[in-house]
């Protein structure tokens, strides 16, 4: 048993840290793609922004959508609540509020990340190095958490935040690539870069080659990132964790959240990629995202607000 507010702060601490990492992954890959000859530059990066819901705000600030402006808006712009630096700030604020419930090493880690990021923003650090740094800090935070905190409800809520955020981000990332391609499925050479970039942004490029030992195909990429339980950023892997975490939380509340997680889990376990693609990848992902959002809302209602 713990205070709902505390659970909420733990949950959002890790959600924001995970969001910062996913943003860094998304922007890193988009940034490299924008350097390719056929790229439309800022417009491609802006298309990626559509996944974060920040595109309108960005266009309001930078109507030209110049690549450098868009990237700055999403990384170091503290006035943009969806930027990486804002995510690190919110992660740190939530951690500060629950300092007594996390280990000293976790706090020091998350506090140092925020202080250093501010420093980097002030210095205008080159972006490629910054993206790597964000990923490293997120790995460090997750490792410190895993290696130091007691296995109790606090741990469960921290992990729940990580995997709900990651499931959401992976689904949006796959979705934006299907948009970028312009049509739902194509194994043409131009798209090779896009699907490759998607795998790289999710750290799954090596896994793809090891599992399929074949050239990139949209069908296999989709299968890997949606249904494979052994790829840690796939939708299936995220939902596996969520379905295991929820029943572990003490107390009698959260029936609807647990049922929803179990349903989602069963679907991902027994769905097949061909039937998913037959219904349309975009439609499938939109449905998944609405289920993940409903699950997030149930978790909020049952544990984090407990009105």
């Amino acid at each position, binding site marked *: 048993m713990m205070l709902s507010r505390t659970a909420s702060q733990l949950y959002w601490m890790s959600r924001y840290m995970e969001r910062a990492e996913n943003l860094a992954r998304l922007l890193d890959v988009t940034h490299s793609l924008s350097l390719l000859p056929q790229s439309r530059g800022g417009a491609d990066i802006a298309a990626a922004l559509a996944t974060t819901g920040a595109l309108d705000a960005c266009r309001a600030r930078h109507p030209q959508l110049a690549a450098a402006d868009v990237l700055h808006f999403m990384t170091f712009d503290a006035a943009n609540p969806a930027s990486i630096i804002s995510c690190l700030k919110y992660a740190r604020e939530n951690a500060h509020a629950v300092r007594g419930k996390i280990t000293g090493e976790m706090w020091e880690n998350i506090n140092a990340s925020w202080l250093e990021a501010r420093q980097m923003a002030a210095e205008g650090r080159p972006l490629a190095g910054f993206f790597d740094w964000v990923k490293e800090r997120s790995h460090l935070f997750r490792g410190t958490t895993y290696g130091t905190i007691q296995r109790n409800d606090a741990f469960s809520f921290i992990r729940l935040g990580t995997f709900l955020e990651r499931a959401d981000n992976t689904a949006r990332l796959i979705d934006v690539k299907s948009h970028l391609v312009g049509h739902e499925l194509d194994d043409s050479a131009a798209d090779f870069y896009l699907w490759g970039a998607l795998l790289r942004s999710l750290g799954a490029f090596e896994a793809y080659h090891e599992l399929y030992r074949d050239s990139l195909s949209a069908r296999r990429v989709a299968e890997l990132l949606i249904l494979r339980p052994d790829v840690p950023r796939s939708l299936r892997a995220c939902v596996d964790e969520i379905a295991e975490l929820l029943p572990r939380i*003490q107390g009698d509340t959260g029936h609807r959240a647990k049922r929803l997680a179990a349903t989602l889990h069963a679907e991902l376990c027994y769905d097949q990629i061909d039937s998913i693609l037959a219904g349309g990848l975009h439609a499938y992902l939109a449905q998944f995202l609405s289920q993940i959002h409903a699950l997030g809302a149930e978790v909020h209602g049952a544990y984090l607000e407990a009105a």
Partner: protein
Amino acid sequence: MHALTLPEAHHYDEMLLASGGIRPHYRDFAHWLHSQSPQTLARKRAEADLMFHRVGITFAVYGDDSGAERLIPFDSVPRIIPASDWRTLEAGMRQRVTALNAFLHDIYHEQHIVKAGIIPAEQVFSNSQYQPAMQGLDLPHRIYAHITGVDVIRHNDGNFYVLEDNLRVPSGVSYMLENRKMMMRLFPELFASHAVAPVQHYPTLLLNTLRHASLAENPTVVVLTPGHHNSAYFEHAFLAQQMGVELVEGQDLFVKHNRVYMRTTAGHKQVDVIYRRIDDAFLDPLAFRADSMLGVPGLLSVYRSGGVILANAIGTGVADDKSIYPYVPDMIRFYLSEEPLLQNVPTWMCRRPAELDHVLNNLAELVVKEVHGAGGYGMLIGPAASNAEIEDFRQRILADPSNYIAQPTLCLSSCPTFVEAGIAPRHIDLRPFVLSGREISMVAGGLTRVALKEGSLVVNSSQGGGTKDTWILED
């Protein structure tokens, strides 16, 4: 009104005699200190700084969201008090807190002390800290101040004087505990050679006191904090953690069916005792300040019907106000039929014409304070003031005499302290913590604050004060 005897020029030093000799209770320590190399001591101090940073004994500065946190300086020369002195202090504080609780019960019930003409009615009832909502309310065991911090100084006559009683939300006890832990880590050998009374059981005593405050069978206790922007947030979190109870904010609590509940991941849980670290005015927006986001709507109504206990009670501030302070010795005589064991600092009340004359004739030697002021505001320090400032203050006193009290300029005792250039005397005070539960209990110790600036008498952490470990030596 008795006058203080003020030996000229010299102040009282806790370690050194005027002759330069060492007081007996400091001899072993002085001997040890002499045997330590400056390098070792410097290394230990650096180690202490680092450890305090890591533990997070930090002091959040209001309005600073830069992520940086300041450290309250810790001085590693302990303030040592012999057992005989502590016995006097302990008995005196026990007596004082008993009388203050009796006073609070009395003024919120029959008001015998007012009817007996000992304290003027307007001093009590027109005091802004007097809470009409408490009138006639019966509290379990008649305890109002469950936790009291008594600020004590040693004057240059060698005697202890009570500077003020803190009956609202006294803070600082976490530093007492962390300072001891730090000293034991840095200098374990000193604890082998000195019989230092332990203080680490304070959180257990506090929890017992809070549980006893309720008549419930197995009461649920929480600590209520204004949140992590508060300067004492570390202490709130520390005490909750040490007692193993939840640290809650107002938004975590709500009122239903005349009980208080907290929102948890396992549903709603009833709360029986709230160790609140927020002021009366912010407790309940329906009853007090409507703009307060820190409190719990409806809390007062539950409290008044006995559904929850607040520690300390609402309305205790009327007993630690500067205008009531001069009457504490009379309270002790009135309620306990005893003579006070600890002295008050002599205080002239400007509302009395004869004392007003004395004050006006001696402004250059006195400290004059507004009766409801705090934190050094609205204060004249005669010896440090210019003629113009004194004249200005004279006009203010004359315009509203009853708003002022005056005291002699006290000379806080000093204690050797690490400074830039070695070890030098710095002025100190002492805040022991008195718990009123089934019986009055306290750990032998307290928070010693030290003014780190040479000659300064201001020990507040907001103005460059530090802290020391406080050792009560057992016989």
